[in-house]
């Protein structure tokens, strides 16, 4: 029976130590949980941005869509700012599993927008450059009076190369969708551009091979399928293009592309 007494004896150094551990563990789990929730928000908003970008194909002013997407991604970046806030002073790898799905989805969205604007692959640096946050500091609790002018602090979030890779791997699926849509909408330039770009990404991934993280290998199969679909689409365009009687060529093109500025109109 003496155990019972001992354990509740709060003067026991063991119990005191474990009270500290309890605090430490609960704090960590709570933070982890908050990060999971923010990450889910990041995922959902990023996905919606991607859907929004696919809507570009047939609206009168694509630039509006791009701006809307930019605004949406600004919102996502605010969320990532919250993640950065939570991670302030932490080892980000300790909580990485909590927010990696959201970050990958963000990379997918932001690189999709970038491709549409610039027809190129956004770099990891460019992504990270947008993840710098200014925080108005709360007045330092110790010593300083309230009402004091608030300072600002720079907070950064660094996407890891793995998350970047995994996001880019998913991007290829969206590019494939964009390619098929383009063909359906009579845009014959975009598919060829996309097949070039996708092939570069594919070659990049095969160059990395199995040295990358395990999840990449899993996505490689899908990537290869997407590339196949895009190559098939280009093939079809070429084959059918071979049939245009020369004298008709002008007609066909004028009737199908006049209203589309090939550089900006459709994509």
């Amino acid at each position, binding site marked *: 029976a003496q155990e019972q007494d001992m354990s509740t004896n709060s003067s026991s150094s063991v119990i005191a130590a474990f009270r500290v551990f309890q605090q430490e563990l609960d704090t960590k789990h709570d933070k982890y949980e908050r990060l999971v929730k923010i990450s889910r928000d990041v995922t959902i908003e990023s996905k919606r941005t991607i859907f929004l970008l696919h809507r570009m194909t047939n609206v009168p002013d694509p630039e509006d869509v791009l701006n809307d997407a930019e605004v949406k991604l600004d919102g996502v970046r605010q969320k990532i700012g919250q993640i950065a806030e939570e991670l302030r002073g932490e080892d980000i790898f300790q909580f990485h599993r909590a927010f990696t799905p959201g970050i990958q989805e963000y990379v997918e969205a932001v690189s999709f927008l970038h491709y549409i604007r610039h027809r190129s692959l956004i770099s990891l640096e460019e992504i990270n450059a947008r993840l710098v946050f200014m925080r108005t500091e709360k007045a330092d609790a110790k010593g300083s009076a309230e009402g004091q002018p608030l300072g600002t602090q720079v907070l950064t979030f660094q996407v890891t190369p793995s998350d970047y890779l995994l996001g880019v791997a998913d991007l290829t699926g969206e590019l494939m969708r964009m390619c098929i849509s383009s063909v*359906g909408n009579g845009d014959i330039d975009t598919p060829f551009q996309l097949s070039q770009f996708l092939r570069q990404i594919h070659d990049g991934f095969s160059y990395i091979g199995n040295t990358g993280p395990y999840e990449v290998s899993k996505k490689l199969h899908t990537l290869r399928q997407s590339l196949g679909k895009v190559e098939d689409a280009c093939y079809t365009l070429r084959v059918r293009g071979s049939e245009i009687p020369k004298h008709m060529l002008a007609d066909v093109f004028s009737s*199908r592309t006049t209203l589309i500025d090939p550089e900006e109109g459709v994509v």
Partner: protein
Amino acid sequence: MSVTEMFSYIQGFLSADQDVREDIRKVVQTLEQTAREILTVLQSVHQPSGFKEIPSKCTKARELFCTVRTQIADLKTKFPVEQYYRFHEHWRFVLQRLAFLAAFVVYLETETLVTREEVAQILGIEVVREKGFHLDVEDYLAGVLIMASELSRLAVNSVTAGDYNRPLRISNFINELDSGFRLLNLKNDPLRKRYDGLKYDVKKIEEVVYDLSIRGLAKEPESVGDK
């Protein structure tokens, strides 16, 4: 003894649940049978000779939808109305097929997109969940997407049958549909996968129209819905 009683109570619940599911399964089987019959009726439109018979086939299909309504009426009696989603999986598949068939009939008749209200009416069910056995919006959309794929097939077969206008009309229709679907934010679920298929349908139809264009066979359809 109280534990035993508790488990008896739960077991009673589980048995009742299984009975309900068994009943539902049986009615759903008859629905699937009718759906296959309607499909067989409508399939003939793909035949070279089938184009002229569209009106009579639609009439025939409409008759079979009477049977569907009776069967669904029967289905409704099998479970409490507010537990629709408890058993949704049982009839989801066939309901999507039926939505497709209804959409297809309406398209063949008027070359317009069936509304959710119309599908619900054809199937004798509700649109609003609160009112009773209803058509889930995702099931309606799935049905519409199945139709889109059927229309891409129809565009191909129209050309074979010598009807060079229909593909253009289908093209316009399907493009509008595509624009509609673009507005949706889908999750990574079966509907998303089906929607990804729509792009291929659009592409296929575009190719048919292209083939007609370069051969000078495509005329801008003056009078859409020319029946």
